[in-house]
């Protein structure tokens, strides 16, 4: 084997390694458990007086979230009612314009409060990872339950409202699945080709190619296998 072949093979092995990722499920539970660990730690430092409104309601909401992953809008609705903000009467027009049932859940009520939007706020903080995870989980569940339209709505919200940055690739793949399930194969194929072109190094490229369909020319395929 020539040195060049060795280099190429070595590169291939490490490329394969870099493409391997944990699932979102693992990321999700890592986030939850570390936030829980931080709260436990924090609780022991803060005076007892802090068992007032915000903290108690926040913990109740967080425990709820910890016991169930957010997988349906009904849970989202109940979660919202557990938030401290809901416990405080408000008629402020800058409160989020969306219906409570539409509000994506975050693990940290205080974080959500800090980033709840208004069109006049100077800088809407980028979507928190928890918000993104929660929204994608809802979309995934909707899809699993056969509601591809609902999944697409949630994905649209991901794109527009959260302007999510962390999990864009996952969102794209989920959108492909939803489009395919909805029978919108031409759109799926076009989106898939776009994804492959724009994300050649992505670990999701293979899954995207699957949706790219028979129209995909041989120049896009390594092995020439059928989709």
């Amino acid at each position, binding site marked *: 084997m020539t040195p060049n072949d060795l280099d190429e093979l070595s590169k291939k092995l490490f490329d394969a390694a870099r493409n391997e990722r944990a699932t979102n499920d693992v990321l999700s539970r890592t986030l939850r458990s570390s936030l829980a*660990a931080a709260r436990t730690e924090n609780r022991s430092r803060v005076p007892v007086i802090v068992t007032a*409104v915000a903290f108690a309601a926040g913990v109740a909401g967080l425990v709820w979230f910890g016991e169930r992953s957010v997988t349906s809008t009904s849970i989202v609705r109940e979660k919202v009612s557990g938030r401290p903000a809901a416990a405080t009467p408000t008629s402020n027009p800058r409160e989020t314009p969306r219906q409570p049932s539409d509000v994506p859940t975050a693990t940290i009520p*205080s974080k959500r409060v800090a980033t709840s939007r208004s069109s006049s706020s100077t800088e809407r903080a980028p979507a928190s990872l928890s918000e993104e995870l929660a929204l994608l989980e809802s979309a995934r569940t909707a899809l699993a339950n056969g509601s591809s339209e609902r999944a697409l709505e949630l994905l649209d919200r991901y794109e527009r409202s959260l302007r999510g940055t962390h999990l864009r690739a996952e969102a794209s793949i989920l959108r492909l699945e939803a489009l395919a399930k909805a029978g919108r194969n031409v759109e799926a194929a076009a989106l898939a080709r776009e994804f492959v072109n724009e994300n050649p190094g992505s670990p999701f490229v293979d899954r995207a190619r699957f949706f790219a369909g028979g129209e995909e020319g041989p120049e896009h395929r390594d092995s020439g296998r059928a989709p």
Partner: protein
Amino acid sequence: MIDWRKSGHGAVVSRAGLLSDGTGLVVPSRRNSAHARLESTVSTQFDFVWQLLRRFGLSRSDADDATQQVFMILARRLPSIEPGRERAFLYGTARRVFANARRGLRRRREADEGSAPDALSETDLPDDLVEQGRARTLLDTLLGELAEPLRRVLVLAEVEQLSVPEIAALEGIPLGTASSRLRRAREVFRELLAQARDRNPFDSGEK
């Protein structure tokens, strides 16, 4: 420490400052920013930690658990970690967690296909993914034959794609040591790879 005062309305405010979303709710700003920092650290460093643990030698599911452990340790210690030092802390913690995990578990590399995240059987996966899985299995075998200090620097360089100064900083070794160790690691790895290829010319699905 946060200084708490009860306001006249029974809300809790911190001396550090109020944070309001316009609904009249005030939240402790210190806790808010601590949570934001933790979430941001998890978000940006999750892959780094997981890939370290995986290539140090843990199976997928062991790497999942170990990663979770690492971040829980970070979460408890975050207030005492200087901003900007999170990755260094995570690296040191990952090394320790890996060492513990390895002591407690049999390495299950041969049982772990290293296949696609949804863990379908090989027959269901598209060819590309099967090939990637095989490539990773070979890689892990070779990495496992390296001495740990060599394996670590190679993983940092080739998987995490860090520079030599970054590697030296994480490992806590001089720049020259990091450089020579990496060179040595690459030599040994190459040698191991050549031997493996000579034994199995058609392995790893190479085209």
